[in-house]
């Protein structure tokens, strides 16, 4: 037999890096099958390429491996005795068993990178049987997987500004194919980080915050932190990685409970209605009248006293509905320190370029968390609107607001005062430079309008079928092959998809530069600490019971 001819030097004919060959079309129009020997450990999720001629031009087409099946291997009957290795049986019977396994893999065509359109274009033809396949080169993947708009697949994207180095392709060795998402993209068309508890959502949020606060980006960030998980971000103020040539260093500002205030006049009638305990129709009507009257006054610093007085003036001193309203207003608003006639959160203190503001809402109940978010989002949105329309504005730069427990602020069912403004911002915000990030462990509990407007998705381990279903519905780019991966991911592994990506990719999220603040609490540690504390203060007095005065009477979400 003649030895196989190989023309020397021509890289097209060098098959040393070929991992397999196309064996035929797959079930779907965009799928093809190929066969690899065992030693080519091509995993699902791997990116491969082949060359085809499209309209006279030679194109490198990218495809993603979506399935891997053994088509030749030792029979299961060789496994009859767990104590005897199947290879031993194979050896005994003279069956070849070293490197003889064959695998059939399914691959989904992504397309070739169209430099004119700066995205993937479908070649509309499957590779022919026998077409050699290669592992896609790392530099090319770095350039074409995220939506970076590169003009050439050989662009050195590590030099680009405004990118968030999020991690690297899971199927490759650490750092071989770095994934850098364009910050402008996910910060303007909104972001969702979805995963079960403990899968690394907050950690990933931290990574993105770090990237956005680097000297090359200097974002204006606002973090709604219901669990006080982001206290370690302050390390950015001294960490050398965040030091700019011009002396820049991020500002990290914390707003705790005692600085989180809502000016009563900044509430809307609907907010008040939501806070009040079951007001009657008559009460609602009286309140609406009183509220309107207060809006027409010059003063913006009125409180419950002034509102009640106004209503008594309008409806008579002995109006029983106003009486009922007074009792409710005093109980739910006046006795809640969150609401003040004059104090509020000054926008210029929480929003500034190069500043990351963490609103630590740990001690607030969820209704109060919703209310503070509602009022702040409305105010910021109004300022952004003003800025974009050339009017005077307190906020001159785009803002990105990140919500932990996103389903609490934009729930799919039940009433949350914040839902309206979140829907508005997620559908309109991109025009006004106001981006939202939603972090949640219950995607199925998030308002579908809000979730489906989150253009970029970072999805991590999710087992719950209802939540997987919610992701399938709202995450356009999430194909079946990607969804299949979700239950098997481990903490720190994520599927990146949506506007910031040209095609979904399975990524290992990088390590944080600052510490992660949300380590799970050790119960045993806390018990012994508490015990020690109790031992050292033997005389304890019961705290005085002030009744339910501080409670707003609303159930937690």
């Amino acid at each position, binding site marked *: 037999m003649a030895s196989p001819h190989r023309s020397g030097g021509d890289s097209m004919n060098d098959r040393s890096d070929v991992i397999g060959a196309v064996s035929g079309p797959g079930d779907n129009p965009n799928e093809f099958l190929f066969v690899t020997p065992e030693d080519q450990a091509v995993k699902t999720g791997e990116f491969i390429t082949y060359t085809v001629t499209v309209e006279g031009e030679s194109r490198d087409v990218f495809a993603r491996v979506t399935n891997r099946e053994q088509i030749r291997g030792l*029979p299961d*009957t060789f496994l*009859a*005795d767990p104590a*005897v290795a199947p290879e031993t*049986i194979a050896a*005994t*019977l*003279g069956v070849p068993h070293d490197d003889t396994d064959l695998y059939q893999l399914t691959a989904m065509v992504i397309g070739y990178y169209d430099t004119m359109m700066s995205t993937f274009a479908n070649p509309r033809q499957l590779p022919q049987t026998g077409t050699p396949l290669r592992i896609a080169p790392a530099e090319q993947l770095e350039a074409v997987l995220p939506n970076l708009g590169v003009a050439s697949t050989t662009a050195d994207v590590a030099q680009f500004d405004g990118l968030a180095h999020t991690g690297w392709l899971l199927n490759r060795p650490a750092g071989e194919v770095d994934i850098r998402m364009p910050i402008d993209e996910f910060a303007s068309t909104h972001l969702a980080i979805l995963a079960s508890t403990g899968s690394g959502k907050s950690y990933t949020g931290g990574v993105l915050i770090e990237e956005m606060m680097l000297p090359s980006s200097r974002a204006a960030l606002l973090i709604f932190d219901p669990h006080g998980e982001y206290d370690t971000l302050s390390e950015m103020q001294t960490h050398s990685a965040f030091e700019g040539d011009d002396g820049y260093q991020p500002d990290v500002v914390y707003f705790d409970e005692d600085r989180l205030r809502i000016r009563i006049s900044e509430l809307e009638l609907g907010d008040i209605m939501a806070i009040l305990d079951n007001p009657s129709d008559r009460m609602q009507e009286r309140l609406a009248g009183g509220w309107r009257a207060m809006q027409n006054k010059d003063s913006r610093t009125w409180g419950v006293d002034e509102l009640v007085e106004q209503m008594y003036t309008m409806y008579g001193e002995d109006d029983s509905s106003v009486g009922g309203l007074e009792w409710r207003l005093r109980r739910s608003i006046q006795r809640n320190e969150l609401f003040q006639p004059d104090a509020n959160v000054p926008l210029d203190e929480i929003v500034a370029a190069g500043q990351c503001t963490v609103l630590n809402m740990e001690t607030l109940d969820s209704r109060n968390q919703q209310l503070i978010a509602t009022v702040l989002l409305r105010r910021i949105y109004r300022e952004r609107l003003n800025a974009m329309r050339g009017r005077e504005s307190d906020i001159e730069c785009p803002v990105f607001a990140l919500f932990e427990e996103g389903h609490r602020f934009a729930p799919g069912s039940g009433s949350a005062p914040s839902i309206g403004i979140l829907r508005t911002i997620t559908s309109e915000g991109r025009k006004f430079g106001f981006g939202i990030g939603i972090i949640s462990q219950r995607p199925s509990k998030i308002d579908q309008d809000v979730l489906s407007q989150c253009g970029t998705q970072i999805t991590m381990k999710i087992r719950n079928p209802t939540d997987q279903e919610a992701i399938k519905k709202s995450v356009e780019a999430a194909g079946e092959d990607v969804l299949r991966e979700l239950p098997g991911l481990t903490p720190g592994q994520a599927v990146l998809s949506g506007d910031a990506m040209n095609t979904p990719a399975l990524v290992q999220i990088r390590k944080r530069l600052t510490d992660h603040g949300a380590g799970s609490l050790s119960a045993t540690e806390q018990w012994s600490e508490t015990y020690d504390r109790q031992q050292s203060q033997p005389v304890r007095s019961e705290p005085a019971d002030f009744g339910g005065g501080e409670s707003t009477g609303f159930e937690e979400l």
Partner: protein
Amino acid sequence: MTIETQPEDTHVDNCLALGSIVSSNSHLDYTVEIYKETDRERAPQIDEREFGQPVFIQKSVSGEPYLVMGVIYNTQLVDPDQGRTGTRLAQSDQGQFTPGYIEERTTLAGVALLGTARVTEDGLLTDPSHELPRWTLEVDDIVCQCPDELTKTFHMNDEGDLQFAYADRILNVGGPLGSDVLLSIIGRLRSMIADTDKNQRVLDVVEQNITWQAHTDRGVIR
């Protein structure tokens, strides 16, 4: 003392001759005429040439002594007085039983080749190979009974692991009885190795596989 007789039994030159080759059906499949009392002073007993009996044929290749290993996978009785139409081991149109060649009532045995081995200076089997033997045997080559000790050595590799690498060929050559030949050899090997030998469990799985396959092939299970 009986120790001295021990090496004699396994010396390839001292093994019992069972018969001689009269024809072949293929490269791996030979027909052997079993010796009768009239041929030899020590003719093989019925249990010495039974179904599944391992055998060998001594062959000298380029001056080196070799063994071609085989197994009795079929037997057949021939009675020349019954006329020339008597049944034959091989396909009917192959006239290998020429008139006058077999003149009396004879037992024929089908021998399938398993592999080869070399012979040590002490006349023992060494370097077993389960690869297809390349050499052709000849008419009148003497087929000997393979003693258990040599059978065992033939089925062990250097690491002391059992090997049956000829299994696929035997299943082919042996036809419907192919699996039974293998099972018979397995049975023999079992009795040659200790009950606690790790190879017993390997034999279990191999035996199970062959039995299962045989039952499937024969339509008992599907």
